[in-house]
């Protein structure tokens, strides 16, 4: 049990705690940014997949709408059926990085900033395909009578979308979107494969260096339990809090305009 005391003393080191804390912040910011950007891209994809269609009476319009709809379906299905890690690797090689951003910032080296940028791009691309399907579910939950009502009041299609359909669709999907934040927080741990930025990678780095801090000179099994257990506790607290909020919202009776 003497090794356990050594392992626990790692967590008493304020430098290490600050190091882990920075990881938590990066994890949270990354996830919120990914879901935020994913919501914008995903909404566009969902709208295109659902409504970009017209009949064959105007062939040119039909070709254009079909083209965009197919593009959106292809995007969504491609990202949904391949793992995130593949896209992280792909973006590391192929995603363009504005060299003007290659500075040290947020306490990261310029190389890490570059990796963070590219990995965040992968996370956003991946998350947007999931959110597109969530938004589509929300759009489908709005009864079609709402369109007819809008048209009869003289709204055009864009106005109907902005003022009538989207507000209702988004209100219906708030709980699902929050669950997606939980998933994205978990998914952001995939970044541990490429760089030491967010929580998981920092804890893993600490585990490899534990022999320096626990006073025994070797990495013991108690270090695994203390460090990974601590990380698990942090993830659990964040995600469980969110899931309680989700359940609160879900249990509220839905306000529905019929």
């Amino acid at each position: 049990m003497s090794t356990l005391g050594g392992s626990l003393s790692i967590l008493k080191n304020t430098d290490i705690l600050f190091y882990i804390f920075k990881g938590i912040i990066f994890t949270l910011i990354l996830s919120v940014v990914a879901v935020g950007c994913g919501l914008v891209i995903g909404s566009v994809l969902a709208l295109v997949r659902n409504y970009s269609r017209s009949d064959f009476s105007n062939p040119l319009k039909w070709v254009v709408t079909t083209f965009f709809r197919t593009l959106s379906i292809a995007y969504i299905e491609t990202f949904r059926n391949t793992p995130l890690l593949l896209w992280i690797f792909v973006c590391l090689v192929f995603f363009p990085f504005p060299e003007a951003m290659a500075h040290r910032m947020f306490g990261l080296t310029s190389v890490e900033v570059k990796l963070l940028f590219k990995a965040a791009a992968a996370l956003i691309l991946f998350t947007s395909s999931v959110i597109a399907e969530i938004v589509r579910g929300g759009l489908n939950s709005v009864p079609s009578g709402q369109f007819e009502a809008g048209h009869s009041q003289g709204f055009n299609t864009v106005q109907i979308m902005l003022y009538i359909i989207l507000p209702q669709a988004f209100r219906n999907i708030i709980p699902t979107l929050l669950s997606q934040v939980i998933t994205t927080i978990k998914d952001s741990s995939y970044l541990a494969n490429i760089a030491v930025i967010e929580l998981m990678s920092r804890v893993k780095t600490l585990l490899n260096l534990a022999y320096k801090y626990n006073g025994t000179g070797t990495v013991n099994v108690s270090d695994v339990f203390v460090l990974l257990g601590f990380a698990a506790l942090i993830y659990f607290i964040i995600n469980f809090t969110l899931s309680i909020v989700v359940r609160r919202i879900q249990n509220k009776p839905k306000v529905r305009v019929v």
Partner: protein
Amino acid sequence: MDGLFSVEAWEKVWIFRETFLLGITNTLKMAFFALLISLILGIIFGLMATSGKKILEVISRVYVELIQNTPLILQLCFVYYGFAFSGRSLGILVTGFLALGVYHGAYMAEVIRAGIGAIHEGQFEAADSQGFTYVQKMGYIILPQSIKIILPPMVNQVVNLIKNTSCLYIIGGSDLISNTYSFVTGASTGGAYGPAYLVCGLIFFIVCFPLSTLASIWENSLKKRDMRTITVEATIVTEGTVGK
């Protein structure tokens, strides 16, 4: 996008096609064993969650919440390093399907719980009143009805399971993603990024797309059928009252 159109790079991928085949074989093998474990765990904890006994429900709840609220990579590292540093290494494949099985078991348990929960309470009461035992009640009455609700999301979980084998990269696995990555960064094989990633993505897509499409079509047809049933029931009720 350099390399994507170079004949040389494609030739390299073709020469080392064994790497990709081995990768997908490992991935599917692992997914299969993980699926078995997750099904067993899912059925056990799903039944516990719907058993109506407080203590069993709490145990099942704790398992599901603990697993669902922490990342898979963390759990995988926990299993792998936990065994490695206590001197009993399990091997990467075993670690992989243990961690994946436990992780997806939590999701399977939720799917099964939801499926059983969707069955009307009267069915349980009817079975009890006819003197069915628990096993008979579940086997003959509840599960046959809930299986159609359970299966579509379960197929989705299988897709996620196959995608999540990519987690093994962090412990140096031999699944498709890890093999692809070591191929493109290897000293003698490196450089063919474009073709290798494309092939890897295509293999995943070919395996996962039919499954996820099946799941969503299935789900939609079930939803439509449910709606029809509700409308039919509603018309029967209104016609009945009008007739009286």
